[in-house]
């Protein structure tokens, strides 16, 4: 099995870099690239205490699998890929996304990692609501999936 994708209910389970490393390790691979995104304590001058991630579960899983398979076809068909994203309430410091790639060579490993991150941001129906230290909260604006010819 060369592909693992999941949405993780972050109040019940943590996203684990150890689990990701174990998944991608292979004697066939000479390079491993890992990207970890975390909830940070500031955005646009506002002090953030947590982020709630909402997601359309079925469409996210479908998009994750499509993105990862496209990445393999584009860069390295034998790559091992681990992709998990948080769902639910994640305090500052919590891992929001983890992408781990094991590949034959470093160039492909880096490229696959970057490709997956950018495509998730543009394709996967996931939303962020920031919770601020002063008690306010706000859904962040993002990328529209409405067909461009209709807008």
């Amino acid at each position, binding site marked *: 099995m060369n592909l693992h994708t999941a949405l993780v209910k972050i109040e019940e389970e943590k996203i684990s870099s150890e689990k990701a490393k174990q998944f991608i390790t292979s004697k066939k691979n000479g390079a491993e690239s890992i990207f970890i*995104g975390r909830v940070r304590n500031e955005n646009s001058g506002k002090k953030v205490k947590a982020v709630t*991630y*909402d*997601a*359309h579960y*079925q*469409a996210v899983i*479908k998009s994750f699998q499509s993105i990862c398979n496209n990445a393999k076809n584009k860069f390295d068909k034998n790559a091992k890929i681990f992709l998990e*994203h948080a769902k639910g309430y994640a305090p500052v410091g919590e891992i*929001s*996304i983890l992408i781990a790639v094991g590949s034959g060579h470093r160039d492909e490993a880096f490229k696959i990692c970057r490709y997956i*991150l950018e495509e*998730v*941001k*543009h*394709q*996967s*129906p*996931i*939303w*962020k*609501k920031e919770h601020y230290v002063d008690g306010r909260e*706000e*859904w*962040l*604006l*993002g*990328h*529209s*999936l*409405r*067909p461009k010819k*209709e*807008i």
Partner: protein
Amino acid sequence: MEIQLKLYGSSKMLNDKDTLNIQLPENSNIEKLRDILNKIISTKHSKSNLKDLSKTAAFFSEKNEVVNDNYKLKDKESISIIPPIGGG
């Protein structure tokens, strides 16, 4: 006819529940749904940051695929509203 709108992201501000039932004329399509949604936002949520939602949102059918504005809605159909996304 009536459809059930499944709410995600910022559209959850439209209701206390995760769904919103919307009354539409017979044979309505997604374009009509956008009109009705715009009216709901203008009358009940004018102070929120939802003002562009009816234009920027995509809609998923029950097959979880984006449908275009000509898509004909059926009575009791369940449609997901997909506000602009931003994970990662």
